[in-house]
């Protein structure tokens, strides 16, 4: 398992670094919310999911999209605004999607996909599917009313949802304790009737084990399960750079997280050859994906007017008037 986890972690880290490297050239004219430092959350969860499982996330969705198997070429092309992007250039970094991989949506309005995930889970349950929905959101999202409403409904209907709160302690530049009267997200989840546990220290292996352990019951109809994963954002909220100079957080706050970096941790847990092969593969894949994005064409002007509606065949039923 470690090689798989390492591949996924390394791949996301390097894609994000590559985006940051390219960004100053202005070829990516899209806001980017990098997940550098937070890769372990998406990787730990998605590694324990089945291909038919579905994920919903946020504008900070690169890691989730890649960890769940979203197409890398299409993702980069999307950031470039090219016709070959996963959303044909119409969604950008904040609206990644890949239905084939079970990546069903990411939103730029905080909290919105929590309710969408719950509804999707209702449909799975209704269809007697054994698939589940994993829903990723930040600590700030838990302050939106939709979070409370969605948890209540998920418990009421015992829906197959894994709620994954990526607690990086900040909403943009504001600390959790300045936004939450009682900064205990698991406690709130439990008050709605959810089993909830907190994974400290961004631990990818522990998270992976725990998701594997609880998923079967969730699939079997035991109801939703809640994980709060403590993690940390190394870069600025949006953009390729750092934000320590802004003074809202102290640079040494990041140190323990860098020391516990899950990418390096997993690297050290696998043998050198495997590691070299993985990194070689990934670098080649990224280089190819960047080239693909660069060389892909822009959408045709006519594309502006497509995709507003899905228009099927004329209504089959006879019209008496």
């Amino acid at each position, binding site marked *: 398992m470690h090689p798989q986890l390492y591949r996924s972690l390394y791949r996301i880290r390097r894609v994000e670094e590559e985006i940051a490297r390219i960004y100053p050239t202005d070829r990516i004219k899209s806001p980017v919310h990098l997940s550098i430092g937070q890769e372990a959350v998406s990787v730990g969860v998605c590694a324990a999911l089945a291909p038919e499982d579905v994920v919903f996330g946020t504008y900070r969705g690169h890691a989730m999209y890649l960890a769940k198997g979203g197409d890398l070429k299409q993702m980069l092309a999307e950031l470039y605004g090219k016709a070959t992007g996963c*959303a044909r250039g119409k969604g950008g970094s904040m609206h990644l999607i890949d239905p084939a991989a079970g990546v069903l949506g990411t939103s730029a309005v905080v909290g919105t996909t929590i309710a*969408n995930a719950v*509804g999707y889970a209702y*449909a799975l349950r209704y269809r007697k599917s054994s698939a589940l929905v994993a829903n990723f959101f930040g600590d700030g999202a838990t302050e939106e009313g*939709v979070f409370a409403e*969605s948890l209540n*409904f998920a418990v009421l209907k015992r829906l197959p949802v894994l709620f994954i709160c990526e607690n990086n302690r900040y909403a943009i530049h504001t600390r959790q304790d300045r936004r939450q009267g009682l900064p205990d997200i698991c406690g709130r989840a439990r008050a709605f009737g959810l089993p909830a546990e907190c994974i400290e220290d961004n631990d990818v292996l522990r998270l992976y084990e725990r998701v594997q352990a609880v998923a079967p019951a969730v699939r079997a109809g035991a109801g939703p399960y809640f994980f709060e994963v403590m993690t940390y954002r190394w870069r600025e909220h949006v953009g390729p750079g750092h934000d320590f100079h802004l003074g809202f957080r102290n640079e040494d706050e990041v140190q323990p997280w860098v020391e516990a970096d899950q990418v390096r941790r997993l690297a050290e847990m696998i043998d050198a050859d495997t590691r070299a092969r993985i990194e070689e593969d990934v670098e080649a894949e990224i280089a190819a994906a960047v080239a693909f994005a660069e060389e892909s064409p822009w959408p045709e002007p006519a594309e502006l007017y497509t995709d*507003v509606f899905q228009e099927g065949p004329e209504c089959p*039923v006879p019209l008496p008037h």
Partner: protein
Amino acid sequence: MSGAASPLTARRPRFTVGERVLSYVEAVREAADQEMARDPSVIVFGLDVDDPKAIQGTTRGLAAKYGPERVFGTPLSEDAMTGAAIGMALAGLRPIHVHIRMDFLMLAMNQLVNVAAKSRYMYGGRVALPLVVRAMIGKSWGQGAQHSQGLYSFFMHVPGLKVVAPSTPYDAKGCLIAAVRDDNPVIYVEHRLLHFQKGPVPEAPYAVPPGRARVTAAGDDITLVGISFMQVECLRARHYLADVGIRAEVLDPIWLSPLDLDTILASVARTKRLLVVDNGWTCCGAGAEIIARVIERTQGEQEVRVRRMGFAPVTCPTTPALERLYYPDGRTIAAAARDLVEGRPTGWLPDERPDLRDIEFRGPF
């Protein structure tokens, strides 16, 4: 109020004697029932859809027939339940989400405007969102500020949403079937007082698809476009106008988005006069849009006189003494229409005709 006798029968499309007559409530119920029977992906939910009152009866019996997984009441959580409806639609279900008042959609605007309307486009056409949102406009008996709004223009404003406001039992059934079969989000606007309307409704399923207005009464002197319940008032106005020799043509847009402008243009080409009566406020309303489009299309070619009516530009008061003045009605519409036809303020206001009196609505709600 059955067929031939009523002055409102003009609203019936091709009525053949002996045809089955249903109430608007029964028509909505039957449409949902038939679509659920046809397609297991159709489900109905919303606050109180499974309770003894069954949303005025429009969901009566569905829970018993299709079970609690396909028909269920919800927590008081309009925002999340709308988001859930979107998630269900993404998964291929065809949810009908019901709201007893349109005013409550204000709690669902984020999901409707920012997610439902945009998902297909912002995901490059890789998803479809077959979703129907039923919402009712309330009126009279002290519904007041927060239970009386007709906010459909909000949804007309946003690309990616379709909007329909059927005014007859016939269209209520046909439009709901069309909405359920549409692969896009449709806001289906009902009116509490229209629920009491009766009219011919074929038993076999049929669709009244987007983009088709209907001429509900022919005439050559002026075109009256009545939206939702105001369609009834326009048909009343037509009779008052007939008493003074003015022949009004009455149109029902039925679908507000997409809007069938051609039918309106064809009528206006003959009448040269257009009065749009909104079932809401006029500012940035459907009437403003219809008039702007008609003028943009006709200017330079024909001279058309236009006017809008709608709710008074205030909050809806509860006292009957003021509520009466808040809404346009058959008589005030007739008065405005005559002024438009004669091109001057005539000061005329017809006395109420007993056979054109409003439906008696008695509370408590």
